[in-house]
């Protein structure tokens, strides 16, 4: 820190004869050779939030990169200890706000594991469909912004066009576009109507062509290749040792996808593949995310084809909300709704760690319950935070201009990283 301040003082002052020590002036006169500390963020357009990085530089090469986190720390884990289980669902929306529903999913699955309840089939199908739509939205967002950060602006407009269609569908589904709180412990909030199913089918008809379109913009684009190939390389062994997950780990060729390893929802009932990279660089991760979009579209299509009829939540009135249309017309349902919204429900004593494959990686919830209606301890395992732990390792030796690519490659969202 002191070193930084010294350096800042040195660089902020206008050039003055006193700033130059004899040893940093070469014989030719003005050549300076000392290392430099460069502060990047917390306000920087490409950090996707408030991330600050202090870079040790030797010329333009990065010697050391120190991330300074916590600018978006809101104490979600502490807040959760003082909220009832249904109240925590909206809190989880604010973690990874680009893919809010996957956070809901991870949380409600952990609670359901403690409660030991089985969901009706339709609820599982709807959950899987919505989680994959959310993955599409997340990857589209990543692709657009990553390209934008690197300098290809066009892709952004193309990917956000499709993301918009998905957000409209989310709005139709639950009334919100970003922080959706759609999942409930024991089921989902509203049923998927025929209109949504039809519109989703229409979207899926054209989506594969759209993916081809993005690829024509990037796949063989000289600048894109030059700025992503062999950038932020990490070997499979290091990636595992650092605890990386998701596309970052799979980019190094490690076959670990929770949807396959410990299937949940209906992922074991549909056909799909896990795309794997070879070189562990940013280009491979780009390829994986694009391929995952194709696989997600495949999963959604199969789920829609098989979507069974039936209830969308378990029949346990002490846990689930009453049907929405009844709440405003029926006194008992109103009281019932009020009780769940305010008091919540008791969860048996025990502890559980439950993880799902979020678009960013393994999103896990560790819940320690003492038998009351609030968790005794709720721990979120955020993929972005753990990815930032490997940042110094992955950034070493690259140029300043690559920094933007390197934190883009994690698909980092600070809301989840700082919680």
């Amino acid at each position, binding site marked *: 820190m002191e070193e930084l301040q010294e350096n800042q003082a040195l660089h902020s002052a206008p050039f003055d004869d006193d700033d130059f020590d004899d040893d940093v002036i070469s014989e030719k006169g003005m050549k300076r050779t000392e290392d430099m500390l460069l502060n990047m963020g917390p306000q920087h357009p490409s950090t996707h939030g408030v991330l600050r990085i202090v870079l040790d530089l030797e010329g333009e090469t990065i010697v050391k990169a120190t991330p300074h*986190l916590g600018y978006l*720390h809101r104490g979600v884990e502490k807040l959760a200890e003082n909220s009832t289980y249904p109240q925590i669902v909206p809190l989880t929306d604010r973690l990874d706000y680009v893919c809010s529903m996957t956070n809901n999913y991870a949380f409600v699955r952990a609670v359901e594991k403690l409660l*030991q309840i089985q969901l009706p089939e339709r609820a599982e199908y709807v959950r899987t469909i919505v989680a994959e739509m959310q993955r599409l939205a997340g990857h589209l967002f990543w692709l657009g912004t990553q390209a934008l950060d690197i300098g290809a602006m066009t892709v952004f407009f193309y990917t956000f066009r499709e993301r918009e269609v998905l957000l409209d569908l989310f709005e139709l589904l639950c009334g919100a576009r970003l922080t959706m709180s759609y999942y409930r412990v024991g089921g989902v909030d509203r049923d998927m109507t025929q209109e949504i199913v039809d519109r989703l089918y229409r979207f899926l008809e054209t989506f594969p062509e759209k993916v081809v379109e993005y690829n024509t913009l990037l796949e063989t684009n000289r600048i894109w290749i030059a700025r992503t190939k062999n950038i932020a390389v990490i070997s499979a062994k290091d990636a595992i*040792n650092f605890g990386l997950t998701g596309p970052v780990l799979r980019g190094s060729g490690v076959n670990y996808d929770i949807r396959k390893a*410990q299937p949940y929802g209906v992922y074991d009932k549909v056909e799909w593949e896990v795309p794997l990279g070879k070189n562990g660089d940013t280009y491979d991760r780009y390829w994986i995310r694009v391929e995952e979009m194709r696989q997600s579209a495949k999963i959604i299509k199969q789920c829609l084809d098989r979507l069974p009829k039936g209830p969308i939540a378990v029949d346990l009135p002490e846990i689930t909300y009453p049907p929405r249309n009844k709440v405003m017309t029926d006194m008992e349902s109103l009281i019932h709704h009020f009780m769940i919204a305010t008091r919540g429900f008791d969860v048996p004593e025990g502890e559980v760690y439950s993880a799902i494959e979020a678009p960013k990686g393994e999103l896990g919830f560790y819940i320690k319950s003492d038998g009351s209606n609030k968790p005794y301890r709720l721990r979120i*395992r955020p993929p972005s935070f*753990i990815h930032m*732990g490997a940042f110094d390792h992955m950034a070493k030796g690259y140029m300043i201009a690559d920094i933007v690519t390197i934190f883009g490659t994690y698909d980092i969202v600070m809301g989840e990283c700082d919680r």
Partner: protein
Amino acid sequence: MSPIAQKIQERFPDAFVSSKEALGELTVTVRREKIVDVCRFLHDDPALDFDHISDICSVDYPNEEPRFEVVYHFYSIEKNHRIRVKARVPEDDCAIDSVTGVWRGANFLEREVYDMMGIVFNNHPDLRRILMTEEYDEGFPLRKDFPVEGRGWRDRFEFLGEGK
């Protein structure tokens, strides 16, 4: 007892405290003095092969002795199994050895535990606060005796507390 827990007990009879299997998850409690040895064994043993670190967190039990519990979650990519390892840490000697030598990913996770719960990790390469500011001195937020609304500059103005 599950075969993994049995293996740990055979290898570390003096460090093993208890094991439990509930909801399909295995939990092994060990003494904190041996945590690095146990973790190295879990990581290196070919039959266990816990090469991937999922998480490190901590739980506060103010009415129990020892007060704190550090909870580790490990996963094996090859064998596809998980384990939860726990170690108790007392309040008066609030420290445990760091496992950064085994998994480098433990670095940030241990910093967070230190930041939120105040547990010191011996031999950690860079033990600083990570989510709170480095000069934050009002305590450790995730401890149960820390108020939810936080302690901060607003507590220094007396009139804000009036009427409570």
